[in-house]
C-alpha cells in the first residue's frame, strides 16, 4: 500500500513538473499574448493540483493535509479566473490576437486582411 502511494506520488510530481516546464516554455516561445495566456493558464491550472496531490500523498493525514487540499481548491478556483480576467482586460485594452490567416503553409488562403 505504501509503495503504491509512493509511486503514485512520484508520478504526480513528475507529471506536474513536466507540465510546469511546458507552461514556462510556452510562456517564452509563443508569439502573441493570447497564445501565451492560453499556454500558461491551462498548464498551470493542471500542474498545480498534480504537484499538490503528489505532496498530499507524501504526508500523513493531519491538519496539514486539509490545508494542502484548501490550497489546491484555492489555486484551482483563482488561477482560471485570473487568466480569464487578464485576457478580457487585454482585449479591453485593444490588443487583438495575431492572425496567421495569410500564411499559406498552415492552411490559410492568403485572402484575409491582417
Amino acid at each position: 500500500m505504501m509503495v503504491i502511494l509512493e509511486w503514485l506520488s512520484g508520478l504526480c510530481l513528475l507529471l506536474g513538473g513536466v507540465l510546469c516546464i511546458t507552461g514556462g516554455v510556452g510562456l517564452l516561445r509563443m508569439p502573441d499574448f493570447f497564445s501565451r495566456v492560453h499556454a500558461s493558464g491551462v498548464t498551470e491550472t493542471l500542474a498545480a493540483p498534480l504537484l499538490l496531490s503528489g505532496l498530499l500523498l507524501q504526508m500523513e493525514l493531519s491538519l496539514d493535509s486539509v490545508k494542502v487540499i484548501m490550497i489546491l481548491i484555492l489555486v484551482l478556483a483563482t488561477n482560471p479566473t485570473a487568466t480569464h480576467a487578464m485576457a478580457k482586460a487585454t482585449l479591453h485594452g485593444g490588443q487583438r490576437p495575431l492572425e496567421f490567416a495569410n500564411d499559406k503553409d498552415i492552411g490559410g488562403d492568403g485572402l484575409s486582411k491582417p
Partner: protein
Amino acid sequence: MLTVAIVAIMVTMFLALIRTFLGPTEYDRMLAANSFGTKTVLLIALGGHALSWHSFLDVALLYALVNFVGTIAVMRFFEYSNASEERDDPGAAA
C-alpha cells in the same frame, strides 16, 4: 522525486521571470508576474515540506490569496484606469 519537482518549479519561475523582463506589452508582464506568483506558492508548499519548515502551508495559502489580489489590483489600476462613472453596469447591483 520531490527534488525533481522543486527544480522544475524553479526553472519555470526563471522562465516566467525572463518573460517579465522581455514582454513587449504590460499585459505580458502582468501574466508572467501572476505565473511567477503561482509557482511561488507551489515552491513554498513543496520546499517547506522538504526542508521541514513550520507552518509553511499557512504562508503558501496566504500567498496564493495575495497573488490573486495583486493581479486583480494591477488590472483594476492599469487596464481599467478610467474612473468608476464610465462603467455603469445594470446587472451588477447584486
